[in-house]
């Protein structure tokens, strides 16, 4: 179930389109049918199902504003390196680390997304969990969780919430936070935002 939840989370941060929405609707439906009782995810999944609309032109513009090209700024940069490295650029050491983790399994990022893009990392985590029989995937899971996702996702979701996003992204942020806390076995540690992109300007004050 955790694998599919990560896969769902990844899909929620993808560029919205009808095909994606149909896929996510099916994923949510599958997750809601999981028989574990109590299923602690069910209320959130129900809310998500209510917000997955096939035609939502505003959502695409909101996705752009929040993650791609926003005014006055991208609300929540979706790249790990932007949160974990002092220069807050893309293609940093973070990117290479995730890329190397992926490459160990013959995998890489595609579709115009960098390896440490939120979608790439979440899909990779979903794949790692789904393939636990493959050697070392458990260790890689822990590395990806502790060295990457758990270190920057809380800041990312906080920035996302602060940008007053549509409900779908508010729910996506909640799903992501809970997912990581659950995976860690405890709430994500209270981590300061290491290098919030908004503070960049202060370097030059």
């Amino acid at each position, binding site marked *: 179930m955790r*694998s*599919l939840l990560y*896969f769902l989370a*990844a*899909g929620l941060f*993808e*560029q919205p389109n009808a095909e*994606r929405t149909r*896929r996510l609707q*099916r*994923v949510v439906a*599958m997750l809601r049918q999981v028989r574990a009782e109590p299923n602690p995810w069910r209320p959130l999944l129900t809310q998500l199902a209510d917000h997955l609309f096939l035609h939502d*032109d505003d959502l*695409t*513009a909101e*996705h*752009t*504003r929040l993650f*791609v*090209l*926003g*005014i*006055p*700024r*991208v609300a929540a940069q979706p*790249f790990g390196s932007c949160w974990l490295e002092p*220069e*807050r*650029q*893309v*293609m*940093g050491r973070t*990117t*290479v680390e995730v*890329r*190397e983790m*992926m*490459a160990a399994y*013959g*995998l*890489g*990022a*595609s*579709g*115009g*997304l*960098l390896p440490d*893009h939120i*979608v*790439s990392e979440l*899909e*990779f985590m*979903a*794949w790692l969990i*789904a393939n636990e029989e493959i050697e070392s995937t458990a260790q890689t899971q822990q590395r990806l969780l502790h060295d990457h996702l758990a270190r920057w996702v809380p800041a990312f979701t906080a920035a996302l919430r602060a940008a007053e996003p549509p409900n779908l992204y508010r729910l996506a942020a909640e799903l992501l936070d809970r997912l990581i806390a659950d995976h860690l076995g405890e709430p994500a540690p209270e981590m300061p935002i290491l290098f919030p992109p*908004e503070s*960049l*300007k202060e*370097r*030059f004050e």
Partner: protein
Amino acid sequence: MTRGFDPRRRAFLSGVAGTAVSVAGFPTSALARIDAPHRAEAVKPSDEVFGFCDMCYWRCGLKIRVRDGRAVKIDGNPEHPNNYGVVCAKGNAGLMVAYDPDRLKYPMLRVGERGEGKWQRIGWDEALDRVAEGLNNIKAKYGAHALAMIGHGSWEKPYHRLAHAFGTPNTTSPVFGLCCGPRGVANMMVVGKNLTGNETLDLENCRYFLMLGRNVTESLHNGETRAWVEGVSRGAKVVYVDPRYTITASKAEEWLPIRPLTDHALLLALIHVVVAEELYDREFVAEYTTGLAELKQRVARYTPEWAAQETEIPADTIRRIAREMAAAAPAVLVYSPRRLTRTTNDLGTGMAVAILNSLFGVWDRTGGVFTPQGFPLPEVDLPPFEHPHADLPPELLGEHGQALRADGAGIPGRWPIANADLGLTNQMWKAMATQEPYPIKALLTAGGNGFMNSTDWQTVRQAIDQLEFFVAADVSPNEMNMYADILLPEATYLERYDDLQTGGARQGYVAIRMPAMEPLHDTRDAWTICKGLSERMGLGDYFPHSSIAELIDDRLRKAGLSRNELEQKGIIKLKADPAKNFPREHGGRSVFPTPSGKVELVPSQLHALGMEDALDYEPQVRPDAGEFHLTFGRVGVHTHARTQNNIWLADLMAENALWIHPEAAVERGISDGTTVRVTDRQGRTGELKAKVTPRIRKDTVFMAHGFGHFDPRMRTTNGRGAADSNLASSDVDRRIGSAAMGRSLVRVEAV
């Protein structure tokens, strides 16, 4: 050896061709198998690739170090004559252009109001389809000439080709009308050579530099600065003429704080002395020039005493400089301003520079101006452009019924001596804003920023308001492309092949730009974008190659070379031959491709055009009491208005300041660091901090160019400093039509 970008691992970053994997039966979007074939050209798996820089317009040769599929360090290519291995701060900081998380990543469709910044990501096919349809609609409705194309960068070439194939004459680049144009026109008239771009000056061996605001240590080009420093270290005298004491001035023996906009007066007086005292190179003048007698007559009234009144440089100093230069000739250079768009008679100033250099016989002599060797590299074979018959009044049509340029460049009765290939960007913005002489309804931009590199935000806004369709191709967001209807994200110069760089230096050369890594996100190179558009508009014959790499191969093949050969060192140079650079030092003759075949001290083209009065002095504006001349210029760590948001360069200089003399500051209650408001006669304003310094004249203020960005997306630089572009004058050179930006007069007050 570390491994660079290996095409076999291409998919690990964007890997568009990567095979999707699945989770619970669902295909992944981002995660893919990486053993998939890749889409673009193979790049040699090496730890370094070669290129040429795009951070300024000198185009230094680069050697880019690559690790783990990332460009990690930019060095200079030691073989490249533009820089011989040196890279400046700007060149180093190119990495931060590529890795800027705010850069344009995907094709975007505007979904809100124009300029609102509301976008929707679309795929490349949809983007190109929409652009092709939009442009074709404009053509059907208004004619092909209703499209303007403005490009600014080393990769603008395919866009010019696309626009001409489309059928519009209205392509332009700011390099002419807003920068070097008048200098090129003046040189062409006097000596038949352009002498802009990478100037062919024998700086190392020059013995006497008269530098007219040519701030080579801050308006920095590596090869030029290095050679000039070498010349100075060998004992060359430097007389530096500028209202401001720049770093270059600090290396000079003399600083002459000339009154702004009066360089032409100084030059005319120098010519007067050289002619009157017969200090010129008699042999050269006799053999290679025409017009001395007429020149003598024309400059008779421009005595040093007259010039002293205009320039505030003492007459004795002017006489002494003329004599000192004559004694050092021909190893002397009157070093022109690089940007010569300052007054209503930049043509006259530019010609006076060329004339004075000619009187000193500097052409093809050691320490003077050398003749470059070009590199014989044919362009690709293309069908001729067919500009269609336009439905316009006859006075706006050429001989084949095609529309004449809207900016008037090269057109009799308008701006006949302006370069019709590069156009007058300042006039194009006006034409778009006024819809005169005919409507321009679509704009395609390739880089650039009309707000920050032109002279009037209001004009640019009005121009954009008139557009029915605006497509911007660029790497980073900025004030101008914020208004686009469709954004096409360009790959950076570190991620792409581009057309070859050929240059005329001491040795002719051809250099290559290789991708150091694959394009990040979903960006593409200009050629690939234009090829896609051309095919959708039925213009595919103008882009016959399958890729930019194949185009490079085609050009090199014609010259008997190969890409593999060129990629070994990034550059191939012709054998050095000093006899070709300095023929008159080796028993040869100079060549001057003017109408007479000689240096024309009074250009025949001026007579033909009735523009002889350009040789005469035109007084410029003077400040009223309480006003200042506004000057602006470059600094060593930024280029134009394009680098202020680069975090490495902002770390070195994050905002500009207003240089103001201590006495003028005290009168206004301004201290160092005080925020001041600068207001021009039109009421336009800018606010920035004051730098109180005796290094500037009391009647002049200065600010570094390119700051004062107002696009909030430019997080590092937004709101920092003031924009000279919205304070500079929109006057024009009366004969060329180029901008006369120096004519702005401003008031300054503490805020």
